């Protein structure tokens, strides 16, 4: 496998990891080659608008065989399109009154709409014409498309007449069902047409009289040059990955791209279960100041950016030995262990502390100085957090069973940290005055938490990096990732600041009770431990380290 192919594979894979369940194939299937011929009869010529839409696999084959770069306006496409134009014309048999006509190309276009997992598909459009001296009566056209014989796909021919021509009989419709292969209505009663031949008879009308096709309501007006469009039912795309494919490079575009990337990074941090945000909220809300929030955001940004670069490089250069999708289980194992460790530590601390739930403030302060992660006072928000656990837990565990997607597992880990943080956000201000001042925060612990928060890279960012490498826009890709990470960090900082400033407000609503103070915190940490262990075991199974039976 060559470098570029490997890049494409890896980018596709990462795309799938980034958007599980949304990767959609070409609407006509991964291996289809779809044909469209729009036959337009004029007084002195016949025009064929000929479009070929190749799904992912034939596109891959075409790219490999021809060596083209799947990028609009790439230099390699010029000679390729000339060759394809000639070969495709050879496969089209157009006859008028039994005499075969020679087709000439007027213009062409090629695009590479993304298919499953962002892998390229290829759509080529041509306008062919043939000079056709017609008689006043009894003109007959026979048209046959012999290209890609037997290959599955949508095969559509339509026939329309230009002003001055009247189609008397036609074996094909004038109705364009697929809008030139840009939408494929494949419902139960609209299976793909399989029309590769057409016969029609026509006659000239009185000069200047406008005529339309015999069937349907096709327009007889001359049509402009081919203008191809991606399939309407194409794969749902991510705006971030689309940015990388844009050809512009002016300052305005870069500015817009940066803003979009940063915004998307921010939204990514806000996605449900994105624990990076809540790691920050936890730390800052519990102990930190605005300064700590900013610092933490910077650390997360740095570690996230670096981890994207490192994982990208590892994925690229070790794909000979490591199947890329096997990397994510390891991250899952790491996440699972982290969660389990965190849960277990909390559990032990709470177990020990529950023996003295109402100890003095001085005692709390003493304990807290021993361990910043130790929290002895859980209030009413713990209760709500615990309910939240149950709701979330059921849903996500089902997801894990349905998909062995490593990214989901990573997020579960982060969600758990997030839940844990909610259960402590308002617990400390009253009992730990040093947390308000921020004196208890060590740079070392803040740095460690920041790195932990950012070390599992977002697959979306990884896709952009690999996609950029694949299409030789490395610098742009790297730049976008930085912007993405900055956006992500901004939200983290925002959350942290919100937590810092909302602390006093939230603390007004506390209530106390043995359930919230003793058992719920204990159960909460036990659940975290169990789920962490579950994630770890599932990841171990996925990685093939543990065998689940024969």
């Amino acid at each position, binding site marked *: 496998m060559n470098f570029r192919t490997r890049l494409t594979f890896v980018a596709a894979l990462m795309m799938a990891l980034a958007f599980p369940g949304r990767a959609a194939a070409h609407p006509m299937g991964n291996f289809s080659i779809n044909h469209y011929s729009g036959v337009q009869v004029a007084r002195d010529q016949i025009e064929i608008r000929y479009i070929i839409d190749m799904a992912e696999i034939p596109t891959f084959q075409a790219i490999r065989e021809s060596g083209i770069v799947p990028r609009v306006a790439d230099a390699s496409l010029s000679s390729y399109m000339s060759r394809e134009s000639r070969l495709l014309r050879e496969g089209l048999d157009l006859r008028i009154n039994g005499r075969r006509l020679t087709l000439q190309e007027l213009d062409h276009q090629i695009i590479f709409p993304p298919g499953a997992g962002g892998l390229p598909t290829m759509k080529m459009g041509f306008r062919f014409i043939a000079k056709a001296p017609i008689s006043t009566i009894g003109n007959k056209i026979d048209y046959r498309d012999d290209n890609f014989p037997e290959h599955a796909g949508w095969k559509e021919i339509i026939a329309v007449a230009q002003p001055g021509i009247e189609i008397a009989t036609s074996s094909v419709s004038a109705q364009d069902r697929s809008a030139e292969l840009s939408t494929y209505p494949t419902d139960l009663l609209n*299976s793909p047409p399989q029309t590769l031949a057409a016969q029609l008879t026509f006659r000239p009308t009185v000069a200047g009289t406008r005529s339309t096709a015999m069937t349907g309501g096709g327009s007889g007006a001359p049509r402009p040059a081919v203008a191809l469009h991606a399939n309407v039912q194409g794969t749902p795309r991510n705006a971030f990955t689309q940015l990388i494919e844009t050809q512009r490079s002016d300052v305005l575009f870069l500015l817009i791209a940066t803003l979009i990337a940063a915004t998307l990074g921010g939204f990514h941090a806000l996605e449900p279960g994105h624990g990076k945000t809540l790691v920050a909220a936890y730390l800052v809300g519990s102990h930190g100041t605005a300064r700590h929030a900013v610092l933490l955001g910077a650390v997360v940004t740095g570690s996230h950016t670096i981890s994207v670069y490192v994982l990208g490089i590892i994925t690229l250069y070790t794909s000979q030995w490591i199947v890329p999708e096997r990397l994510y289980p390891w991250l899952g194992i790491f996440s699972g262990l982290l969660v389990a460790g965190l849960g277990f530590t909390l559990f032990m601390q709470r177990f020990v502390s529950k023996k003295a739930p109402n100890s003095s403030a001085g005692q709390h302060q003493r304990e807290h100085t021993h361990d910043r992660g130790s929290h002895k006072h859980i209030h009413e928000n713990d209760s709500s957090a615990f309910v939240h656990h149950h709701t979330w837990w059921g849903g996500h565990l089902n997801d894990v069973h349905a998909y062995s997607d490593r990214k989901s597992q990573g997020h579960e880990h982060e969600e758990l940290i997030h839940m844990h943080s909610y259960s402590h956000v308002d617990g400390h201000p009253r009992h730990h005055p040093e947390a308000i001042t921020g004196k208890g925060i060590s740079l070392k612990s803040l740095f460690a938490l920041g790195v932990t928060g950012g070390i599992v890279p977002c697959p979306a960012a990884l896709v952009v990096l690999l996609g950029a490498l694949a299409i030789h826009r490395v610098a742009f890709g790297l730049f976008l990732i930085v912007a993405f990470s900055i956006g992500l960090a901004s939200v983290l900082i925002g959350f942290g600041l919100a937590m810092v400033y909302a602390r006093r407000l939230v603390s007004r609503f506390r209530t106390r009770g043995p359930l919230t103070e003793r058992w719920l915190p204990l159960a909460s940490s036990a659940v975290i431990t169990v789920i962490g262990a579950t994630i770890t075991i599932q990841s171990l199974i996925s990685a093939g380290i543990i065998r689940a039976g024969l």
Partner: protein
Amino acid sequence: VIATPRSAFFLLIATLLAVVLMICSAAQTAETSSATASAASVEKLDRDITLLQKILKRRPDAELYYRLGDLYIQKGRQTGDISYFQLSESALRQSLTLEPRLAQAHRHLAFVLYSLHDFTGAASEAKTSIKLDSSDSYAYGVLGDVQLETGRYECAAGSYSQMVSIRGDLYSYSRLSGLETIRNHNARAITDLKRAIADGLAASEPPEGIAWAQERLAEDYFLLGDMPDAEATAQAALQTYPNYHRALAILGQVKAAQGRLKESASLYKHAIAIIPLPEYASVLGDVYQRMGRNGDAQNMRDLVAFIARLNALNRVVYNRTLVDYYADHDLHHRNAVVMAAAEYRVRRDIYGADARAWTLYRNGDAAHALAYINSALRFHTTDARLYFHAGMIKLALGHKRAARTDLERALKINPHFQPLLDEVAAQSLVALGGKPPSEYAQASGVTP
């Protein structure tokens, strides 16, 4: 009156030429008429689909939806395009919404689900169909197919027995032959397939259905190492249904085994142009490699890898072709083990056990592989690949005598069962002090 010997000579030559021309012409006519018949069949199918769609748009009807589902199945089988099976499923479900007790619709739905590898759903629908109409042989047939694919051979035998007792035709005899091949009843399997083909022709069944049985017969001949019959039957399938991708592929396999690599490559290329299945690309890669066309071989392997990625994106669970490809080419061991294990949880047929064994062996775990390969060979199926795998696993475990027996058996069954790996088998056998068949030694240059 013949005037001179020279005149007589020219007359003889002319007569011979005329005969040759007549034969050629007849052959061409037969081929053309066959191609025309096949094209007509395809056109009729498309026409019927369009007609039913038009009627159903005006007037929904359970029976017509069932018939549309049937036509979509035929189209799916013709083209290999899975989306037609999905359309068929929708049509059949629509039919059952209108008439929940329509037994044929349940039976067809069972077949569609089976084709989409939903074995549980398929078995359930087949049983419902049997409950509604116990005289339907096809429902027993589909149930038997599900049981065969999931390794429940005794149950499959029972279902097929019911099927044949109700009705013997193209579909029932060809199904039964599959079980017989696995159970090593090769003569019976071949007789049944021949009977299926004859019945299909007599009943004017769709050409694709007959060609499918012919291709199966060619495969059986190939498994037995009978290359002339395999070739003739594959050619017959192409006569029945020109450009049938499965027939092109088996013919390519036969040519590769015969050492006619260029022809083999051309046939596989043709098959891939129709439908780029990974199994075709995998073998074509091996053929290219054997021809010394390493760049082309790499292209084909990249194509397989690409399809593997697409399958991953599409969350395809059943990946036996890719598992075999990985194991055959010594790639992605751990991934192959995981994929084979995932599939084996549902499909415990002999080839599922073989895939488990072969991937475990490649992953360095011959000890665990042994039980699986023994399970795969529990019927002593005449398949050189199975014996080759068994031989290699036993060799890795140091069971040299058993390994030698298995490798000898593999090469005796079919000296060229698979491009590249047949050489591995021969070399391993030589290393064990065995002697590969003389046919093999001549063809590939491996000497004892």
